[in-house]
């Protein structure tokens, strides 16, 4: 768009700039609207009666000047220039009633409104800043007397807390030493090893308990031995190494070795015969 030189417009009806010659210094402006506002002020007329056409031409002249001086112009300024060139053409050409686009007059009015509004905002911002401001013109109490918060601790403890604390510590210290007992636990591996060895040595049905009697001498070990032996025997059944038989619920459980696998299994077990039941420390 910048290459089309759309700003090469005749400047025949540009009024002679009043006051100091326009200095091309884009850096001083807060965008194209600000530049337009500055140009409008140079017309020295009320913004409501400003000639938007004249303003557009001044703006275009400004941009033209800047380009002649090979100054970099921000895209914003060029977009505005293109729009103003369009506006100017709309204003100069007779109105065509054929489309629903806003007329040149409407576009000009919209621009005038925006300029007025920006100027109004500038004005009120100045008025705001010139008010008597706190800390610059008017002052609060220099040494405010702050509200002192007197903190009082309120201790929270009930008679129940107190008695609990007393009873529990007395009790704790009255039992001077608590021994945490060790419990012998038969692991599944132990049970399997022992069952394989004992049952494998016998050929016929026999109650499973009969093999375990020797390991259930201590009453506290009974449960562990039975549970592990039962689990291990089920495992061996699944592997097809032993057979189990029970005539009815809670009747003695019979176990026997299956002949086909007997020989190798026994040989293998002999090699690992040294397994001993583990002792584990109970958590409790």
């Amino acid at each position, binding site marked *: 768009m910048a290459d089309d030189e759309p700003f090469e417009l005749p400047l025949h009806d540009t009024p002679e700039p009043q006051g100091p010659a326009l200095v091309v210094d884009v850096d001083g402006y807060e965008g194209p609207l600000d530049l337009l506002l500055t140009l409008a002020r140079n017309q020295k007329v009320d913004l409501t009666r400003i000639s938007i056409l004249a303003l557009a031409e001044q703006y275009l002249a400004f941009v033209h000047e800047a380009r002649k001086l090979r100054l970099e112009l921000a895209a914003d300024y060029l977009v*505005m220039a293109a729009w103003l060139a369009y506006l100017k053409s709309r204003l100069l050409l007779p109105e065509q009633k054929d489309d629903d686009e806003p007329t040149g007059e409407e576009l000009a009015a919209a621009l005038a*409104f925006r300029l007025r509004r920006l100027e109004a905002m500038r*004005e*009120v911002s100045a008025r705001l800043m010139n008010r*008597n401001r706190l*800390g610059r013109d008017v002052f609060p109490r220099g040494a405010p007397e702050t509200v002192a918060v007197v903190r009082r601790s309120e201790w929270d403890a009930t008679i129940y807390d107190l008695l609990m604390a007393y009873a529990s510590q007395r009790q704790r210290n009255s039992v001077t030493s608590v021994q945490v007992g060790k419990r012998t636990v038969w692991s599944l591996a132990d049970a399997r090893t022992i069952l394989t060895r004992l049952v494998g040595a016998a050929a016929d049905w026999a109650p499973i308990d009969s093999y375990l009697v020797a390991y259930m001498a201590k009453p506290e070990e009974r449960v562990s031995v039975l549970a592990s032996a039962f689990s291990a025997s089920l495992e061996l059944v699944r592997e097809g190494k032993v057979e189990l038989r029970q005539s009815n619920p809670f009747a003695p459980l019979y176990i026997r070795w299956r002949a086909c696998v007997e020989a190798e299994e026994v040989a293998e077990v002999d090699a690992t015969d040294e397994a001993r039941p583990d002792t584990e420390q109970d958590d409790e």
Partner: protein
Amino acid sequence: MSETEDQYGGSGAQGRPGNVTSLPSASHRYELRMLEALLFASADPLSEDEIEARLPERVDIASLLSELQQAYAGRGVNLVRVAGKWAFRTADDLAFLLRREATEQKKLSRAALETLAIIAYHQPVTRAEIEEVRGVTTSKGTLDVLLETGWIRMRGRRRTPGRPVTYGTTDAFLDHFGLDEVRDLPGLEELRGAGLLDSAVPIDFLVPSPDDSEDLKEDEDPLETGDMFAALEEEEHAGDRADGDDDPER
């Protein structure tokens, strides 16, 4: 009786007979003293609720306040209403005397001043709307600086596509500029009359007035957690994206 002594309640008063028609009880005097002490002690304005909470019950705060305000009217310190609250402040005309107390104030850029005015007069207002008025994109720094002054705040999000953050002024803004409420903004009536507070091009619509009330408008949503930190960033990016194809006169 001299005027000074009237204003300052000089010692010459003792001899005068009591005014029977408005004999103020000792308790009334005590209430007035308490109110005075409370307001004098605080650097920040106190709301009537805050005062009420700290004075005995059944005290007519409103009438006490107006009595106290009158008593201080011509004095070096005045009782003023700012942001709907009450505070003692040095008298306006003594500014010259107190310049030395003035704390160094950061000078706001022209862009920041304009943006502040637009937020004050058009609130609640989005960043895009601010840019529409100024005709340029708002740099992140401008809103940051204003947020840092404590004069503006993020109010919520406009219920439009993109849900942009809305900005408004704070009580600290009113306090700083000595305003009781946003309706007291200078020139507000003229601007409204001229249709300049309308965000759109003027075609005789209802003209909105600035509103800094805590309540969100129908088209505002509350901010979400994290918005306070994320909003500016996000808006910044939105701004960047919009830059390229933004026709300032659209």
